[in-house]
């Protein structure tokens, strides 16, 4: 059995009185490529944001390789939803990717040649090097998503959390992104992805978590990605659509 990369205990999050996540226990082993699936409003993004300390849970704790997240921050990278920022912000693609180095730089210190070099490498990896000086509003949706991915790659983390990286991207970009994710897994990194397209789960991922406010199931795709769990999560019979 692999080491446990992320461990979540009794996590409960609520907006007002309505629980969004209810008593989540979760163990994510090192080196898996995991999808979090569930219907809209199931708390998928909320789960990631609570693990990363962006949202404050009512109860529960999170540990990264056995220590609290705050101590292990440098091991974790985050790819937010593309729609969460204003892409008309006056900056360039390279500049956004450089932001990935800010964490290791700490306060006040500016990025230098070394940081620029790793940002360029990350841009190269996602195939965006020719666009490095583009203003970010002039990039297509798929290109913006790749820029976000590059920014996380620069962090050179062990665990990657991605919030719907395939949202609104075309087939070419989707393949490019999934190949990068698979490469990360090969390097024994742990990748956790909020995912919407159930059809591609068996093809892309080796681990899956079903979530609908409560955790329905978590485990290897080949063992638990079945009609039973899908029905429990989505509330309707998925038999037909998946077996097609």
């Amino acid at each position, binding site marked *: 059995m692999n080491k446990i990369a992320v461990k979540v205990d009794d996590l409960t999050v609520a907006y*007002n009185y309505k629980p969004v996540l209810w008593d989540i226990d979760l163990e994510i082993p090192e080196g898996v490529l995991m999808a979090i699936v569930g219907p809209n409003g199931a708390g998928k993004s909320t789960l990631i*944001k609570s693990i*990363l*300390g*962006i949202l404050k849970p009512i109860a529960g704790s999170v540990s990264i390789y056995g220590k609290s997240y705050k101590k292990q*921050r*440098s091991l*974790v*990278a*985050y790819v*937010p939803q593309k729609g*969460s*920022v*204003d892409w008309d*912000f*006056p*900056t*360039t693609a390279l500049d*956004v990717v450089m*932001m990935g180095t*800010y*964490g290791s*730089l700490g*306060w*006040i210190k*500016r*990025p230098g040649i070394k940081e620029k070099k790793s940002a360029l490498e990350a841009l190269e990896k996602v195939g965006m090097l020719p666009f490095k000086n583009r*203003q970010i*509003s002039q990039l297509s949706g798929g290109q913006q998503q790749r820029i976000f991915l590059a*920014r996380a790659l620069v962090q050179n983390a062990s665990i990657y959390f991605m919030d719907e990286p395939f949202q609104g991207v075309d087939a070419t970009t989707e393949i490019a992104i999934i190949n990068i994710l698979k490469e990360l897994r090969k390097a024994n990194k742990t990748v956790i992805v909020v995912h919407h397209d159930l059809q591609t789960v068996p093809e892309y991922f080796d681990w899956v978590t079903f979530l609908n406010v409560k955790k329905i199931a978590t485990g290897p795709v080949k063992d638990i990605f079945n009609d039973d769990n899908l029905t429990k999560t989505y509330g309707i019979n998925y038999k037909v659509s998946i077996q097609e």
Partner: protein
Amino acid sequence: MDVTEYIKLVFTDYTLRTITLGTAVLGAVCGMLGSFAVLRKQSLLGDAISHAALPGIAIAFLISGAKDSNVLLLGALVSGLIGTFWIRGIITKTHLKADTALGLILSLFFGFGMLLLTFIQKQPNANQAGLDKYLFGQAATLVESDVWLMATVTGICFVVLMLFWKEFKILLFDADYTKTLGFNTKFIDILITTFIVLAIVLGLQTVGVVLMSAMLLAPAAAARQWTNSLGIMIILAAIFGAFSGVFGTAISASQNNLSTGPIIVIIAGIFVIISFIFSPNRGLLFKQIRFIKNRRDLQLNKTLAFMHQIAKTHESISHPHTVKILNNFQGYTRSTLQQLVNKNYVKLEGNMWSLTEEGFTKASNLYNQQTSDNE
């Protein structure tokens, strides 16, 4: 007073020099910090803060009983900050939206301030006259110490901006992500907001409670049109702000009795209008010109592609065809044909046209080229 006379006066007349310097510095610092407000989509925050400062001025006067501008501004600062933190509190603690919170605090504080002002006016204290100048500002009351204060705050603000440049930038762009990198976003946020409040308070004496937010937003909105770099945007906003101050003062000084604050704001507004229309990338004018030009190019290409279709069916590409054949084709006009001739894509002999070698190659590459342009 004509321009040369005025310029001479700026350098010789103490009062005019003080006011010009004061409004220039104020414009610069407001433009600088206004850029942050605009990019954070907190444009209305400035308006709320400046209105929230009014009761502070009144209360400071009631407590001190004197009209010392530093004491009054301190009062403005305190009540401006209280207003700001209440707004933040309402947004985070309740489920009201930001615009509701801003509107609420703005009108509540302003109403309370007006109430206090009318109360003060009924007092026998002879000092009270002129407190209402904080509503629309009066640049003429600026003295050297005010300008020094402004310059000091601007200097500190500039240093802090340079120090925390990277932190400011990333917070403006993506606050959640900034948090995951381990930065204390609350601290950065409070730093930015505090400086915005400071700048507003400094401007109250000159521009006044009501118009202050324009000082903050107009230069930044204008600057955004000209550049896609945050650094240049902030520098431009500072320059626009400073020029608004200088021009505004000049106009109000040369035209008797025109109050300075509103003129500065109008000048800043003119910067905005000019920027909206004439900036090369985002401006309306060039956008329209680009649109028309693209449409023309497309018409031309369509005609060329059509000719290519016809020419392809013949063995020799230079086989002549009658012009009539084109008449059924939309988008063809005499002038587009002439343009194609000018570009040496088409030869025209009498009523017959034929594609040139160049035109044929161009037409066959038309679609390939367009796809590679889009890459």
